């Protein structure tokens, strides 16, 4: 399938939004960007770069993307870095840091960094800057993970490299540490024209429900998340069972098998035990999810839940809001940035709260529809890929004038 062009986004976000992107791009001129991360496929960062890089090029910003290379020992180390930066206790040996630096140095020797702006994504390639001390361009570290409670030993090690950057970018103030360099905020975004979010025909939605044997006879309440204790799938079942005493409905739980999640099978068994033989609870465990089917599940739902106990940004919320679904979300991680309680969805703090909101929204379809409409507008304003493009254009303009708070272009 041909990737959508910038032109195609006019239908979704409005012609004037795309026009203003092209105007901003004209002020950016012939500046260039290099994106660097650690994987070409899999994960949200690669997914985002696959779309953002061609669209920035279409806007006239020469953007290229390089993936660093490494053997299994390097990626084992960076996986442990990822977990430790999100708070997992672990002690690292000097040899581990040396191996990490060795691979960064090998990659440095293999790459060029001639672009005006170099954006290094996440910790894996963060030390590349060490060998670029005499650079004439700008380097920014884009951190996609929650750094609010990092492993102190690891953070002290990485911090010595991060401090050498011209700026850092975080997804939310909740996730950022105190740094001496400027920090910018880039919300994660969704692509409204991707298979996971584009419009679907009612026939296709019906066919997906049929394929998974989900009758369309009752309102559908859905949570789409992997089977992970932090997503609280058992709590979702409890909330559903409490609500169903008062409103007739079905529950749909959809999760896929994550390669790096050995706990998935065990949690799935707990979920099945909690569901019992209830014919109104549908538990789907996908080896590999198909984006258009996830899209169909969301569009077929009367309510979408994201009852997590701990979260990153939880873009599943924006995906559902974009489809004008009323969303019940826990007040954790990035969810409150997307849900303004009572206006663009509802926030809950407990199983009981989730249960009450299921009853409330199924009994007040007009209110639920208003939440969905407002949620769609909020996503349109803040969480679409076009906003991400705009932020990169603004960053190119702003990073060259770090001391100015208002920049007049003429």
């Amino acid at each position, binding site marked *: 399938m041909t990737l959508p062009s910038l032109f195609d986004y006019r239908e979704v976000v409005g012609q004037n939004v795309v026009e203003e992107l092209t105007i901003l791009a004209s002020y950016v001129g012939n500046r260039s960007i290099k994106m660097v991360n650690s994987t070409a496929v899999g994960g949200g960062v690669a997914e985002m770069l696959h779309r953002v890089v061609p669209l920035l090029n279409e806007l006239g910003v020469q953007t290229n993307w390089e993936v660093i290379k490494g053997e299994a020992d390097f990626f084992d180390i960076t996986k442990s870095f990822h977990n430790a930066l999100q708070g997992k206790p672990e002690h690292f040996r000097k040899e581990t840091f040396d191996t990490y630096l060795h691979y960064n140095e090998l990659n440095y020797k293999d790459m060029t960094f001639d672009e005006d702006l170099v954006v290094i994504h996440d910790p894996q390639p963060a030390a590349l800057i060490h060998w670029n001390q005499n650079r004439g361009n700008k380097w920014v570290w884009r951190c996609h993970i929650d750094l609010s409670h990092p492993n102190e030993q690891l953070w002290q090690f990485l911090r010595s490299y991060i401090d050498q950057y011209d700026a850092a970018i975080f997804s939310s103030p909740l996730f*950022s540490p105190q740094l001496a360099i400027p920090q910018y905020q880039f919300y994660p975004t969704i692509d409204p024209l991707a298979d996971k979010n584009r419009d679907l025909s009612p026939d296709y939605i019906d066919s997906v429900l049929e394929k998974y044997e989900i009758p369309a006879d009752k309102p559908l309440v859905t949570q789409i998340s992997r089977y992970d204790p932090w997503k609280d799938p058992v709590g979702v079942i409890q909330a559903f069972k409490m609500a169903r005493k008062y409103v007739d409905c079905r529950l749909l739980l959809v999760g896929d098998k994550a390669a790096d999640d050995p706990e998935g099978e065990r949690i799935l068994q707990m979920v099945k035990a909690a569901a019992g033989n209830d014919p109104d609870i549908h538990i789907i465990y996908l080896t590999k999810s198909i984006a258009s089917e996830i899209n169909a599940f969301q569009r077929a739902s009367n309510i979408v839940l994201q009852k997590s106990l701990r979260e990153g940004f939880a873009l599943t919320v924006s995906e559902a809001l974009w489809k004008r679904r009323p969303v019940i979300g826990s007040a954790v991680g990035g969810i409150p940035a997307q849900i303004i309680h009572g*206006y663009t969805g509802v926030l809950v703090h407990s199983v009981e709260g989730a249960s009450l909101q299921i009853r409330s929204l199924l009994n007040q379809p007009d209110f639920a529809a208003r939440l969905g409409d407002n949620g769609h507008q909020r996503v349109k304003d803040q969480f679409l890929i076009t906003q991400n493009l705009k932020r990169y254009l603004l960053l190119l303009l702003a990073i060259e004038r770090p001391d100015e708070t208002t920049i007049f272009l003429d």
Partner: protein
Amino acid sequence: MGDLFQFSSSASLGKLTGRRAYNLEELLQLIKTCPDSSIFYHTFSTFRKMREVQVPFNNDFAIWISQNLAEEALPEKLTAIELAEHNTISSLRERIVAIIENHKQENPQVFDRTAAKPFYLCDVVRIVYLTDKFAYNLKSFRESLNSISVDSIYFHFIESRLYTQLQTDDFSRWIEESLGMPELAAKIRNIDIHIFTLEGLRRKLTALIDSYT
């Protein structure tokens, strides 16, 4: 024919500061000591975002106090600040500080409360730029209104007074000074922005102009 009106627009890039407040005293200190651009972010930028989903609060200070300190009167007072009456950030900052300090005199117990979730002080870089849209009379102005972005409407109707230091929006000023239509200008100037989303404001402006053509 009057002077040409070239539509501008503005965009913001949010910044993080790492500074936080857990109670009203700490919030007050942040408000007193932060850069003007942080005040702008938590008031004007929030107003821009919240209008579109019709949230009653129009600034981040009010939202945080209401959601985290079990306090309703103070957020109401802060929300009642009319941003359009302030053409400098320093006057807006003074007003916010005065409201919080007055509230402290009347309700000192509120200052003893500690929030579980902190207020995160943010900052912003504003980028103001010219668009390729022009108006040279009321007819072309009316036509351009349909095609400019809501960011452009917001800029000319709300934000630009911080740069012009005037007590009025760009649209009514141009219509009065360049087109010589003071009556229409007065009606535009009196539009209550708190009632409308920016798309609603576009429709209101269009309807007002249509009633004069």
